[in-house]
């Protein structure tokens, strides 16, 4: 679950989401990935490290290049977004159940 947290926080950045979208089309080098963004290669590399440690992408060594691709579990992790929405809603409404019970008892009127 911790991994999912990391994945989700890695996904909170639009540049990183765009990088993932590109990698969904296939393997790319850092230079190729940096091209569409108004960003330096070191800045892109930093994003790639975040994605890599979140388990969303994998990199291999090919000479001086380190091409990136989506990690096997990465796509599934992204898919978890909706599952997380479901989980967040479930947690919310379970709390709301408790609150509604509390509201029924006149004494415990919502004091704060």
């Amino acid at each position, binding site marked *: 679950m911790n991994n999912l947290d990391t994945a989700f926080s890695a996904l909170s950045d639009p540049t990183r989401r765009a990088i*993932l979208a590109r990698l*969904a089309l296939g393997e790319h080098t850092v230079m190729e990935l940096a091209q569409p963004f108004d960003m330096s290669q070191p800045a892109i590399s930093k994003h790639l490290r975040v994605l890599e440690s979140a388990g969303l992408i994998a990199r291999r060594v090919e000479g001086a290049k380190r091409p990136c691709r989506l990690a096997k579990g990465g796509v599934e992790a992204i898919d*978890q977004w909706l599952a997380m929405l479901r989980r*967040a809603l479930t947690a919310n409404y379970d709390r709301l159940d408790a609150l509604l019970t509390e509201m029924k008892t006149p004494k415990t009127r919502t004091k704060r």
Partner: protein
Amino acid sequence: MSKLTLKTEGDKHIVVTRRFAAPPEAVYRAHTDPKLVQKWLLGPEGWTMPVCICEARPQGKIRYEWANEKGGGFYLTGEFIELEPHRRIVHVERMHLPDVTPDNHVETRFESDGTGTLMTMRMTLPDVETRTQMLSTGMERGMEASYVRLERML
């Protein structure tokens, strides 16, 4: 208590339903009184809502700010559009992560269901142009795939 259902509808909608063991009046109040909203609209465990602005009237402002112990935080802003007391709330909302997500138009209905309430929340995601933009991001790609999977599951 009946469980949450969450499914997609057409290209732009997400529909959530949930039953509550309390009358529509109470469920509606819990959705429109900031002191109550603050107690339950917290998402996963570990988050609190230090700021809760919820002006339940047409054009009234919505602003929810969440925080966790690790110093994380994000917020949501929105506006109420239409309110029919105890029956229906229409509002628009967007997340700030901190980049702002496209507007999500939400209609929430509360219907009597025995001694309880059936809540139906229908989210409408933006137009095709915005959707295309959204699709260019990895997260939404994933969401799309999940929707399809969910539709198959449900």
